[in-house]
């Protein structure tokens, strides 16, 4: 499958990266990583890129890595629809101190607007 992983640096997006890479290795997915600017994190796009490269190198998996400017949710949906991706993968939310799952703003937008299948990784 042709997978577009959106990553903005939040903890759940890093977990989504690791699991999506693992799954791509097992299933032979064609993976593209879109690095977006998540207003709710302080991690810089360059730092995210080094984390992405580290995980890919560790797994010995090749993937297209892109930096995406503009509104993260709508850009992810655009790219997925225009370039014929089969699935968008995103972090499935952070857990509050109480243990409540809170879905991030980017995932909310993508879920409601994407015509491409969306996977939230837990």
């Amino acid at each position, binding site marked *: 499958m042709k997978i577009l992983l959106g990553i903005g640096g939040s903890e759940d997006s890093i977990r989504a990266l690791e699991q999506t890479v693992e799954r791509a290795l097992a299933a032979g997915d064609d993976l593209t990583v879109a690095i977006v600017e998540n207003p*709710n994190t302080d991690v810089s796009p360059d730092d995210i890129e080094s984390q992405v490269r580290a995980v890919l190198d560790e797994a010995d998996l090749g993937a297209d890595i892109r930096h995406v400017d503009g509104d993260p949710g709508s850009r992810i949906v655009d790219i997925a629809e225009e370039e014929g991706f089969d699935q968008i993968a995103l972090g499935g939310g952070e857990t*509050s101190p*109480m*243990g*409540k799952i*809170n879905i991030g703003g980017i995932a*909310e937008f993508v879920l409601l607007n994407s015509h491409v299948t969306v996977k939230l990784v837990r």
Partner: protein
Amino acid sequence: MNDRIYPDEPASEFDEPPVEFEDREGRPIEIRPYDGDEDEMEALVEMYLEFDPADRAQGIPPGRENRIRSWLENILKGDCLNVIAWDGDQAAGHATLVPADEGAYELAIFVLQAYQQAGIGTRLIEGLLGYGRANDVKKVWLTVERWNRAAVSLYKKIGFETSDAESFELEMTLRLT
């Protein structure tokens, strides 16, 4: 999520538990702080095993016993504040304050289905806030699914105000001092 807006004015007085009352079904209910005892923990595990999954919110309470136990261990320990509504030895409801950030606590409340709509939730949350104020809690926040009108109107009645309405869940806040 750290720039939460709180009401300017503190909420009204809340009775500090223990509190005893008769619910609308005529059952004698007592609200007490969790005493750290094994038996009380086990009674809560029983309550959550009986809990209707349709009333889960944002993944809690968890469904399976091992997950219920690890979740409870996490929110019953340390600086967390817990009150339980008892019908004899049966835990009918449970409300909790978990320290989150900068003196603010996250609140959650659960009432077993057989005890819902009997006035227990209001007393339980008031008891928790009275207990919280006595333990120096200054600010409280919670999230609630926006379709859950019963819960939203209960929180409003207590004094919570909506602080963020832009996500799937409403965020509401209350100031104790």
